[in-house]
């Protein structure tokens, strides 16, 4: 699933400025606990979260996450955005809550990181 498709499904705005046309997201996880994100890890995945601190970006980088969606229209501060730019991880913000964002993407064919 491309970044453009994800943004459309979630009615999400791109926070970081690049288009990242090459990103192909293959699965997703939803979590506010960073160790849960690290537990799920799979390559080319999407993280749906309500946390916006810079260590979310570091966790994403370590776990192989290629894109992050912040729920409830949350906007990270400049330090988080700058770190995401450095790590080439695009950030999106959706008005959806975590449950709805996850459901919409799952319904559109994006599976979970854990196949169970």
């Amino acid at each position: 699933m491309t970044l453009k498709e994800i943004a459309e499904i979630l009615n999400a705005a791109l926070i970081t400025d690049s288009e990242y046309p090459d990103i192909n997201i293959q699965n997703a996880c939803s979590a506010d606990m960073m160790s849960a994100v690290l537990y799920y890890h799979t390559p080319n995945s999407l993280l749906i979260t309500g946390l916006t601190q810079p260590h979310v970006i570091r966790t994403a980088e370590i776990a192989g996450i290629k894109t992050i969606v912040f729920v409830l229209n949350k906007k990270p501060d400049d330090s988080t955005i700058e770190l995401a730019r450095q790590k080439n991880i695009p950030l999106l913000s959706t008005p959806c809550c975590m449950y709805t964002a996850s459901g919409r993407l799952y319904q559109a064919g994006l599976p979970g990181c854990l196949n169970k």
Partner: protein
Amino acid sequence: MALNISGAIEGSFQLIGGNFATAGEASTQLKLKLTNLGVHEDIIRRAAIATFEAEMNVIIYAAAGRLHYYITQQSIKIRVEDMGPGIEDISLAMQEGYSTAPEWVREMGWGAGMGLPNMKKNSDKFSIDSVVGEGTTVEMVINFS
């Protein structure tokens, strides 16, 4: 798989407790080092996750610590020693979901009780030694094949 390693590569990072601003930097640098050596990305991710969890434990719980790595053709060995409170009951701490993290740490997204289980899950060899009031040492080996 042939790696660009002759002999062994080793080094260490100093970790400062409570320093969330740069938390994860040691793991990120180690990940980059493994990438440059040509290690397979699945192995790198496991090593990076195990290292990151260990690094975060030092940042969250200890005053300070040191992360030491030793890379050969066959594997990476990571040892993380800290000057922290120690763990009273290691078998309890190894249970998924058990955590002694304070509320402010949980609000930052840590303290889910998955740290030590994640380290063990991503390592081929895992050992932990802890003395209450002195500190904790974690050793992990991740094989390259």
